[in-house]
Structure formats: structure tokens, C-alpha cells
């Protein structure tokens, strides 16, 4: 387990030792190829490039009106109630719908897809996780085939017309891309939102500050990401190697404990304190190095818009004492529910 900021910084830049080829912890018997997340250089860059283009900051800005419209719709639905389960009523549908729209996935499948992702990411049972991967893979294959017959204006169609290293993408590569993008886009932003909103629910002064000056929201968002980093990727050791005073052996499994890196007192003074004015907010919540989260620009845009709309439309909100938050661990630490209350007058 790598839990220090400098150690993580170095490890993610040493893919020849800390390979992404296998990442599941505990190891699953079935770990299908999901380019480029479990690729190493030189294959990694070849597969990453089409995604970098598709998820560039500029490309994501084109989605901002859709994101805002959906956020407003979801928030307005609950505003008069004076309470909601933020996780299931807002945080889950918002990024998931945007992502499914982007990818060209059928929105009627939203509920079913979410069950599969939960089984995949939250189950401690390797067989359950393996089975979830199989189901997701089958779902993706049928959509790829449909788009091969007829293109639409969506990401799967665009990827079908992508060139990998100068030649057409293969069906297996499409399955691989879609599996990764399926998993990556569904559970992550949701939990980022929940951690942020939970913190705000406990810090009324911060809510007031951000309502008074919404221009502070991007800085607050970065500090929330640092304080509540919630993803922990895995690595497999490709060859014997000594580093950080430890003897790594080939085939050792390594957990990149990113949350610990973002709470490392060697890097961040008083790391457990949320400090909007902290001079160094440079976090690794999206990891760093070649596997930096390709969805980070989309994630930041969704988070920013969500915080803007929640703070402008919902009055001061608190945690609902009758519905305490439920969370689960795993490679992505997540929320099953997050009850909020506010004055509906």
C-alpha cells in the first residue's frame, strides 16, 4: 500500500515497475482488458489519445448547458420537499445521465446499469464482481453492434470512426473502451458530489461564504477534492524493485492509496482541515502521471455546476438526523444514501 504523497508521485511515473495491467484488489479471476486504464506505455498512449481528444476541456464545455439544465431539473424537483436523499435523487442521476447521453447509452437502462456498477465496485466478493463485469461487457457489445450498423451523434459512434495507430479500431478494442468508460463515468462524479455536499451540510459558514461569493466555488471544489479524495487504483509489480525502503517483488499487488497522499502532512499542513485559503491545494484526486483521469474536465464541470445550483436554489441545508449517510468502501469509496434537510418556507 502506497500512502505517502512523494511515494505515490514517484510510483505513478514508474509504469515499467508499477504496471496497470492488473488492478483488482483483492485480485479477481476475471479482469478483462479495458484500454487504456490497464495499459502500460507504449500501448497506453496509443489508446489514450482518442479519449483525450473526446474529453478535452473544450469538448466538455459544449455540454455545460445540458449539465446545468439537468441539475436544475433535479434540484427543483426536491426543493419544495425540504428534504431529499441527495445521493439517489440528485448525485446519482445527474452525472450518470450526462455520461450516458454522451456515450449514446439508452437512458431507460439507467437503473439496471447502476446496479451492475455497484456490484462491481462495492462487492467484496470476487465472483460477484467478475459476474458484474461480464454483464456490463454484454450490454456494451450490443450497443457497439447497433452503432456499427448506424452511427449516431455520440461518443461510441465517434470512437468507431477513430484510428488507432493509423488503422481502424477493432471490435475488441471498442468493447475494451466501452467497458472502461462505462465503469469510469458512472460511480465517480456521483461520489465526488456526495462528499462535497456532505461537507457543506456540516459547515454552514462555508455555505454562507459560497452563496455570498459564488466565484469562490472552483477553489472550494479543489479543496473538497483534496480533503475527500475517494479513489484507490491498484497496480501489479512487473519486476523486482527496491524503492521507499521496501523490496517489491514481481507480481506483488500494490494499492495506490490516493486519499492518504492528499492527507499527507509532509505535503499539506494540517491536512485534515478543510482550508479554502490553503496556498497549496494541488491534489491527486484525479491521480497524476500518464493515467491521470481522462474524465477530470467533465467531472470538474459537473461538480462546479452542481455546487452553483445547489447553493443558489436550496437554502441552508443540513444532514438529516433521521437518515444518516450510508457509505461503502472499495476502489471507489462511495455513498449509498445521503439525507439532507432544509427549511422549505
Amino acid at each position, binding site marked *: 500500500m502506497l500512502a505517502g504523497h512523494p511515494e505515490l508521485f514517484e510510483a505513478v511515473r514508474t509504469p515499467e515497475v508499477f504496471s496497470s495491467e492488473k488492478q483488482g484488489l483483492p485480485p479477481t479471476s476475471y479482469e478483462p482488458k479495458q484500454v487504456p486504464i490497464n495499459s502500460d506505455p507504449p500501448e497506453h498512449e496509443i489508446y489514450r489519445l482518442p479519449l483525450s481528444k473526446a474529453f*478535452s*476541456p473544450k469538448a466538455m464545455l459544449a455540454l455545460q448547458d445540458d449539465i446545468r439544465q439537468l441539475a436544475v431539473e433535479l434540484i427543483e424537483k426536491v426543493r419544495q420537499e425540504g428534504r431529499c436523499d441527495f445521493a439517489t435523487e440528485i448525485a446519482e442521476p445527474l452525472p450518470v445521465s450526462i455520461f450516458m447521453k454522451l456515450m449514446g447509452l439508452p437512458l431507460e437502462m439507467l437503473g439496471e446499469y447502476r446496479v451492475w456498477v455497484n456490484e462491481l465496485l462495492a462487492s467484496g466478493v470476487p465472483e460477484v464482481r467478475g459476474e458484474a463485469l461480464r454483464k456490463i461487457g454484454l450490454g456494451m457489445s450490443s450497443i457497439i453492434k447497433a452503432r456499427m450498423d448506424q452511427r449516431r451523434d455520440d461518443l461510441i459512434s465517434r470512437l468507431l470512426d477513430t484510428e488507432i495507430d493509423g488503422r481502424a479500431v477493432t471490435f475488441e478494442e471498442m468493447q475494451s473502451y466501452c467497458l472502461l468508460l462505462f465503469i469510469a463515468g458512472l460511480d465517480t462524479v456521483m461520489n465526488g458530489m456526495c462528499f462535497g455536499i456532505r461537507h457543506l451540510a456540516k459547515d454552514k459558514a462555508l455555505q454562507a461564504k459560497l452563496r455570498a461569493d459564488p466565484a469562490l466555488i472552483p477553489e472550494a471544489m479543489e479543496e473538497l477534492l483534496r480533503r475527500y479524495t475517494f479513489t484507490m487504483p491498484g497496480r501489479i509489480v512487473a519486476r523486482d524493485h527496491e524503492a521507499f525502503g521496501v523490496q517489491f517483488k514481481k507480481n506483488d499487488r500494490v494499492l495506490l492509496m490516493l486519499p492518504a497522499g492528499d492527507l499527507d502532512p509532509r505535503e499539506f499542513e494540517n491536512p485534515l482541515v478543510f482550508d479554502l485559503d490553503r496556498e*497549496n491545494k*494541488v491534489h491527486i484526486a484525479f491521480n497524476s502521471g500518464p493515467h491521470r483521469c481522462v474524465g477530470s*474536465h467533465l467531472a470538474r464541470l459537473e461538480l462546479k455546476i452542481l455546487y452553483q445550483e445547489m447553493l443558489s436554489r436550496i437554502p441552508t441545508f443540513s444532514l438529516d438526523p433521521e437518515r444518516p449517510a450510508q457509505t461503502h468502501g472499495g476502489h471507489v469509496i462511495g455513498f449509498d444514501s445521503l439525507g439532507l434537510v432544509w427549511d422549505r418556507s
Partner: protein
Amino acid sequence: MKIIIDRQACVGHARCQAVAPDLYPLDDNGYIDTDGFTVPEGEEPSARRGARACPERIIRTVNDPSGKDWPPKA
């Protein structure tokens, strides 16, 4: 003051542009679009913030008038 960027090491965080949009241009794919520049007078704090915002630490300052260049020597 100058900024020097190890351009081929950019992985596209885009934090430099987010904190100092007037100084750090990105290409259409979200990668830094310059090897570096001379910092216009008065823009030193902005240039410094942009350099420090890079999680990869590939943006160096040279002759920062504050006396401390970034990143610090290991």
C-alpha cells in the same frame, strides 16, 4: 522572470490554464501549447500560481523576483 515547460510530459490536467488563463494556452486536446515564455511585467504572481498548480511539476520558474523558484530542488 521566465517560465520553462517540459511540454512532452504534459498529461492534460489543465490546472495551469484554470488558475492563470491569460498566460498558459492549451491546444484543442487540452495539452499545454507552449514550451515557455517570458513573464510580462506585473504577471509574476499569476505565472507563479500557474506553475505551482501543475500536479506533474513540469512548469519551472526562472528568476522569480520573489527569490524562490519553483519547483524547489529535491
